[in-house]
């Protein structure tokens, strides 16, 4: 199926419904993250969690979609529909190009975030890159905590591309 820009044009500017993060902000995830980037190794029972907020750069972790879920769901939100349209047209590779994050409020252990994703734009023409031909998608994330306060916003740009086939060896 060929991809036509008109298919996603009506989705540009639309925002998804608020989607809950799969998990609460948890001590163990913070420790794992800190451990992986070699920041801190303090065991959880030695930290005063009432005073300590989660690392802001970890913001995207809390709202990451699961790898696998017992209940498969169909894409319904605007950004999911854009991704599906591009996937169906063969642009199944994805690579993040840039992310601008703004941290507005600290996040604490036990917070349950929710997020909305807005399709800010899809490039009107196919772009040619070294990764292959593709479309650039701009997404705007808004993350809120359980009190409804916006804690962070992300402007995320990614490239959905048709991966180049490796050159066939001449015999």
């Amino acid at each position, binding site marked *: 199926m060929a991809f036509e820009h008109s298919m996603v044009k009506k989705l540009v500017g639309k925002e998804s419904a608020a989607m809950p993060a*799969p*998990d*609460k902000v*948890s*001590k*163990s*995830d913070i*420790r*794992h993250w800190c*451990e*992986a980037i070699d920041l801190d*190794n303090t*065991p*959880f*029972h030695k930290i005063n969690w009432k005073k300590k907020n989660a690392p802001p750069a970890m913001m995207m972790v809390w709202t990451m979609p*699961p*790898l*696998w*879920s*017992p209940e498969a769901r169909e894409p319904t939100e605007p950004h999911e529909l854009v991704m599906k349209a591009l996937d169906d047209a063969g642009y199944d590779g994805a690579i993040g190009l840039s992310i601008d994050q703004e941290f507005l409020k600290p996040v604490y252990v036990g917070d349950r975030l929710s997020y909305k994703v807005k399709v800010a734009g899809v490039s009107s023409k196919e772009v040619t890159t070294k990764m292959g031909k593709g479309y650039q998608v701009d997404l705007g994330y808004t993350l809120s905590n359980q009190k409804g306060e916006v804690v962070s916003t992300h402007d995320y740009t990614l490239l959905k591309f048709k991966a180049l086939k490796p050159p066939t060896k001449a015999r």
Partner: protein
Amino acid sequence: MGKDVEVKPFYGPPEETLDYDSIKHLVGKFSPVRLPHDEVTESDIRHWCEVMQDANPLYYDTEYARKSEYGGMIAPPAMVQSWSLGTMKAALDQFVRGTLEHPQDPINQVNALLEKAGYTGVMATAQEQTYLKPIRPGDVISCQIGIVQLSEYDHFTRQGVSRYYTIMYRFFNQDEEEVTNMTFRVLWYKPPMNTRQLYKG
């Protein structure tokens, strides 16, 4: 073709073997009970279920779990060891830098003695877990490790001259109830000369 074949004597010098009596005092000894680095969390349970593709609703559906015989969410029992895993730093220290967090633990003393006696190969052979009580989110699972059995004599296996030992992990929750115990059987062997040469390069 077969010109310079080195003929080795059939009877080599006798290899030294481990004296069980020198190590006997450590068998049956346990390490102190140690606190974990994290408590049991729903997010870690979800991550594990995702990787295992385990769709048991007892592990994620609070409503279902509440009505079940467990009366609330539980953690997958097979996940028990992940609650007491050491830090990444401790693992790197042990396997890369060769320094141990607790060298005085009976198990570590036995490991050191076996290695010194030439049993340098390690192979896990059996693991058995007994689930005594459910583990729930929010629990703090502490652990102690002991050595419960060690071969008194050498075994002759395909891996080489070897000894078995069985170690036992005991897991406790914050109320000091034993939730799981696990035995782990390991074969320590002296790699034959050709294997040793292979690894030396």
